């Protein structure tokens, strides 16, 4: 599917929790192309500082309403400029980019026995909502395990609940849910004899921990990776990660996070560094 370039109009911008924003664009052609887990490039201003576009996951899209929604954390100057955009303003965006999550219909596992589990760390919850929508449509809303430093980092939970997703929380300071890491939530999971299918996005340390857990239990696991990006199109080779390979006598190659990912099977990724 070819990405498209858009001068998209901002419909809505809201600060959900301190420094966490949700922005909605009117972008009908784009909304029609989106797949859960893909991302877009957002050019935050017309000047050359900051120079590069910011990659942001597609949080939600509505092909009927023609809208695309992002959920983002204001961490630096690019996201700070984005946070100042008012409804009615236009922002240059392009996408959808990358390969998203493997969807229910594409699973080669017997669908009846599957239990999708979304594991989010902080803003990592962003690309998981549209995935949960897809599972919910096939009658398997699944479980969201959501972790963060504190309650103020946990967002968009109601949207998951509205889909019928069971939401379980963990915060490092205990301000919401279990006090501790999100991995601890696996101890009491009601699997009901189903095969968990892990989908995870968040800080690298968390992804690695979830990957190891999945490996140990023999559960399929997908991770959405982040790397510093320029083009987002597979052209500049800034954004690579090590991926297992067996071609030409190599044990690994550098895969492009922007086009080979951002979603990978966790067991393909080489986690050693």
């Amino acid at each position, binding site marked *: 599917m*070819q*990405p*498209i*370039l858009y001068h998209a109009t901002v419909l809505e911008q809201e600060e959900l929790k301190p420094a966490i924003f949700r922005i909605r664009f009117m972008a009908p052609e784009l909304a029609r192309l989106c797949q859960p887990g893909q991302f877009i490039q957002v*050019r935050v201003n017309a000047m*050359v*500082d*900051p*120079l*590069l*576009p910011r990659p942001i996951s597609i949080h939600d899209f509505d092909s009927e309403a023609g809208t695309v929604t992002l959920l983002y954390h204001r961490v630096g100057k690019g996201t700070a400029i984005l946070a100042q955009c008012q409804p009615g303003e236009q922002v*240059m965006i*392009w996408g959808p980019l990358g390969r998203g999550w493997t969807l229910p219909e594409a699973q080669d596992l017997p669908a009846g026995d599957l239990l999708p589990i979304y594991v989010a760390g902080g803003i990592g919850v962003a690309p998981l909502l549209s995935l949960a929508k897809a599972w919910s449509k096939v009658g398997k809303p699944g479980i969201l395990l959501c972790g963060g430093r504190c309650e103020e980092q946990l967002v968009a939970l109601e949207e998951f609940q509205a889909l019928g997703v069971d939401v379980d929380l963990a915060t490092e300071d205990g301000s919401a849910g279990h006090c501790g890491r999100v991995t601890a939530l696996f101890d009491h999971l009601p699997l009901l004899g189903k095969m968990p299918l892990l989908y995870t996005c968040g800080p690298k340390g968390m992804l690695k921990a979830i990957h190891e857990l999945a490996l140990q239990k023999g559960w399929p696991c997908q991770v959405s990776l982040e*790397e*510093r*990006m*320029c*083009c987002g*199109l*597979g*052209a*500049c*080779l*800034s*954004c*690579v*990660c090590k991926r297992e390979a067996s071609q*030409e006598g*190599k044990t*690994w*190659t*550098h895969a492009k996070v922007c*086009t080979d990912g951002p979603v990978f099977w966790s067991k393909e990724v080489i986690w050693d*560094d």
Partner: protein
Amino acid sequence: MTDLKVNLGGLAMQNPVTTASGTFGFGLEYAPFVDLRRLGAIVVKGTTLEPREGNATPRMAETPAGMLNAIGLQNPGIDGFIKQHLPALQPLGTPIIVNISGNTLEEYGQLAAMIDACEGISAIEVNISCPNVKQGGIQFGTVPTMAADVTKMVREHTKKPVIVKLSPNVTDITEMAKAVVDVGADAIALINTLLGMAIDTKQRKPQLANIFGGLSGPAVKPVALRMVYQVHRALPAVPILGMGGITTAEDAIEFIMAGATAIAVGTANFVNPKATIDILEGIEAFCLQEGINTLQDLVGAAHSS
């Protein structure tokens, strides 16, 4: 309509707009945004004799009006390029320029011979300036005699136009240009990236895994433009492929007026994926407005004053 045709050392181009090696992948990556047939030429990512995996990450850091990269020439090897990528580029009809890097003189010779034998490639851009590869890179690009040796070696192995791409990290760019032109370079490409770095103050270490990286983007434009001007003044007959921070049509025209016959769009592709086309259309509009009949008339125009 202005005649935008230019000739870059034997390579006929329908217009002066090309892509900077390493910023446009192997061409098709930008096809969703750019009608590739409209480009004057496509310069592809730097290739080497063997496939390379490049450097560790982080490979990129943003800087004021610029960026640092230390990709380290990740590429599928010249063979991989010819087999996997070239066939899809062929039907476009747009001239394809392949950028090459070698660890040794002999590798440059081999690369040139392989490209010479390959019909679908129109010209060779010799990268003697990539600052990221530990072996060879730096020396070939900063010592005039070594740059000349590389050029001679390439020249001996191909009849195709040879464009030598110089490093800006030298005291006297004209000396480098003269050295390679004397031994048969058909054109000079200017500039590759400036060597730079950035530090993560939280972690107290360099931002790039490779420590140093190449600076590109609008930040470097004044330096690039100066080098194009100097080389054109020293060697007015030698065609120059100008680049370094070109983001708008006006930037491109500055380079042409400084003495560039053609220009390459690099980092700007990341900022605006249809930058090449916007720049091409902007050049057309400028020429129309200023009543320019042939673009060639503008080449070096800033020198006459």
